[in-house]
């Protein structure tokens, strides 16, 4: 079995490298640790892509099983997490495709829209806009708002801004160029900002 090389330029190998090595050596409990470490993130990503709870559960399970099966193919030139996210995105897109009865689904969907590229709502927000809503209301607003984004923008925003992948990792994960990731990220951020402004802008006349 091939040994994983540390990522070039990094002095210390990522802690996941040792865990992956242990799994390759037959230690299933090391995989248990990896699953527990990343299951929440993978579930979140699957839910953002599929927008369906059941599909997200299936996609998450299948992503971890596929990663386990294919661990030999993991070269270690990217982080284990980034590699896992790529599998999870693909599994999620497959679920989405099935639900849409075979209709083509890709991360390029709807990215031609110009909506939100030019800011229109220029009113400032209240100092702590979240305080005007309880947790359940706020969660609903955030879900509804991000679900309304074109898929190709939503996935880039989630990976880059919510899950903290770098621009390069996001590009690698989604098979996009770096300029494409940057362009989608800007438009995603501006569209979300525009849509959230409807809820969070400072009201006139001193009302909350």
């Amino acid at each position, binding site marked *: 079995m091939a040994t994983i090389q540390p990522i070039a330029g990094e002095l210390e190998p990522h802690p996941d490298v040792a865990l992956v090595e242990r799994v390759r050596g037959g230690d299933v409990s090391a995989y248990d640790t990896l699953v527990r470490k990343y299951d929440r993130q993978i579930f979140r990503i699957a839910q953002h892509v599929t927008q369906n709870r059941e599909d997200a559960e299936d996609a998450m399970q299948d992503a971890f099983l596929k990663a386990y099966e294919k661990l030999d193919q993991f070269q270690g030139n990217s982080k284990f997490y980034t590699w896992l996210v790529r599998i999870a995105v693909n599994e999620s897109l497959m679920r989405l495709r099935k639900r849409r009865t075979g209709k083509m689904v890709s991360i390029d969907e709807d990215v031609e829209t110009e909506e939100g590229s030019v800011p229109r709502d*220029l009113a400032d*927000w209240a100092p702590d806009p979240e305080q005007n809503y309880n947790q359940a209301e706020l*969660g609903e607003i955030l879900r509804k708002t991000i679900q309304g984004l074109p898929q190709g923008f939503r996935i880039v925003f989630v990976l880059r801004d919510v899950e903290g992948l770098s621009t390069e990792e996001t590009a690698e994960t989604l098979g996009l160029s770096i300029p494409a990731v940057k362009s989608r990220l800007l438009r995603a951020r501006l569209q979300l900002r525009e849509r959230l402004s409807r809820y969070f802008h400072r009201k006139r006349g001193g009302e909350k």
Partner: protein
Amino acid sequence: MKCTEFLARLDDLIDDSVTPEMRVELQGHLGRCGHCEVVLNTTRKTIEIYRSHEIYDLPAGLRDRLHAAIMARCKKGC
């Protein structure tokens, strides 16, 4: 600097990947343009809100069930 030029650099400013010279130019524009200042602040807030709120939680019961299913299959060799 026009607003469209500022907007084209908005992400670089937010992600702190601008040169010191460019930062001075962008700050100069912000000092003169209240609209772009609002867009910058509210875009930053948008990112912060999504980062700090867990909108798709994985409940403990579901997490345990999925985890058990994954590990059972892995132990069988998938």
